[in-house]
C-alpha cells in the first residue's frame, strides 16, 4: 500500500503523516510536491495539516489552484481514497471536493487540545476498522474549524450519512460544551457522496503512538490499508 502525502508551501503536518504511515504503519509513503502533477501511482492520498500558502486570503483558497490538484481531483473522481486533515480538509472544501466552508472558530481562539471524536459511520475508507458511535481521542489544532454550510446542504449531508465524525462529550453525546469551534451539528469530519473523500479537522496522524498520548488515530490509517487491501475504494485506472 502506497500513501502519497501532498506537500504545499506551509504544510507542517506532512512529516507527521509520513511518519505515521511509513514508520508506525510500515507502509510505503511518498511526499508529492504541490507543483508536481502526478500522484506517482499511490493507493491513497493525504492532504496534510498546516498553513498552505500562509493561509493568505482564506485557508486553502490558494492551495486549491496548485498544479497537483487536478490529479487529486481525478483520483477522487475515480474513487480513490483521499483524506484531508485540518488544512487539508480546508483545501478539499475550497476545491469543492467536499461541500461547505470554514469560518473562524466561534471562540476566536486557536484551539489546540485533545478532543473526543465520535465515529458516525464505518463505511468510508478511513473508518472501516472503527464501529459506529466509537469514541476516539484525537487532538485538534486550528483557528478556522467552524464548519458551515447552508441548512439545506446540512440536511442533505445528514440524510446521506455524510457526517463521519462529530465532537462529543465522554458520554458520546454531541453536546454544545464538547464543540470546540462552533461547527454546525458538531461536525468534525465528513465525506463526499461516493464516500471515498474524507475531510476532518482533528489530526489522526498525531495520535498514532501511545508515547504522544493516544494511538486512536492509527485506526483511520489502518482502515485505509484494509479498504485498499480488500479492493474497496480503489481508484479506477
Amino acid at each position, binding site marked *: 500500500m502506497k500513501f502519497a502525502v501532498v506537500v504545499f508551501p506551509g504544510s507542517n503536518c506532512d512529516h507527521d503523516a509520513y511518519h505515521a504511515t511509513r514508520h508506525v504503519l510500515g507502509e510505503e509513503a511518498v511526499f508529492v510536491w504541490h507543483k508536481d502533477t502526478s500522484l506517482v501511482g499511490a493507493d491513497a492520498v493525504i492532504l496534510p495539516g498546516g498553513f498552505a500558502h500562509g493561509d493568505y486570503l482564506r485557508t486553502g483558497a490558494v492551495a486549491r*489552484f496548485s498544479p497537483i490538484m487536478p490529479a487529486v481531483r481525478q483520483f477522487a473522481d475515480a474513487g480513490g481514497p483521499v483524506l484531508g486533515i485540518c488544512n487539508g480538509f480546508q483545501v478539499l472544501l475550497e476545491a469543492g471536493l467536499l*461541500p461547505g466552508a470554514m469560518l473562524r472558530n466561534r*471562540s476566536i481562539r486557536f484551539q489546540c487540545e485533545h478532543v473526543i471524536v465520535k465515529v458516525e459511520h464505518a463505511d468510508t475508507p478511513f473508518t472501516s476498522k472503527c464501529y459506529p458511535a466509537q469514541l476516539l481521542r484525537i487532538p485538534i489544532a486550528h483557528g478556522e474549524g467552524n464548519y458551515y*454550510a447552508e441548512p439545506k446542504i446540512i440536511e442533505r449531508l445528514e440524510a446521506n450519512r455524510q457526517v463521519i465524525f462529530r465532537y462529543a462529550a465522554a458520554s458520546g453525546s454531541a453536546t454544545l460544551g464538547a464543540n470546540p469551534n462552533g461547527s454546525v451539528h458538531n461536525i468534525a469530519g465528513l465525506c463526499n457522496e461516493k464516500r471515498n473523500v474524507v475531510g476532518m479537522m482533528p489530526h489522526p496522524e498525531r495520535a498514532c503512538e501511545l508515547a504522544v498520548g493516544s494511538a486512536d488515530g492509527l485506526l483511520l490509517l489502518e482502515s485505509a490499508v484494509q479498504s485498499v487491501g480488500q479492493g474497496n475504494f480503489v481508484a479506477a485506472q
Partner: protein
Amino acid sequence: MRARVFVTLKPSVFDPQGTIVTDALHTLGYAAVHEVRQGKYFELDIDASSEKEAHRLASEAASKLLANPVIESYRVEVESGAAGPNP
C-alpha cells in the same frame, strides 16, 4: 484602471471577528455601534480597454478566488479615470 472589490460574509453567516470588534467598541464606550461585520477589501490595477472590461475581469477574479461563494458575497467598483501606473 483600478477596480475595488469588497468581500463580505453573507448576512446569514455568523461573523466571530465582527462580534469581537463590536464587543471591543462597546468596551470603549461606543454603545451606539450595535453591530460590526468584518470583510475584506482589494484594489486591483487592471490593464483594460474600458470600465466595463475592468469590471468584468474584477468580477471574474472575485468569483473565482477573492470570495468563497459558500459564505461570502462581493461587490465590484471601477474607479473612472484612474488609469496609468501606480504613483
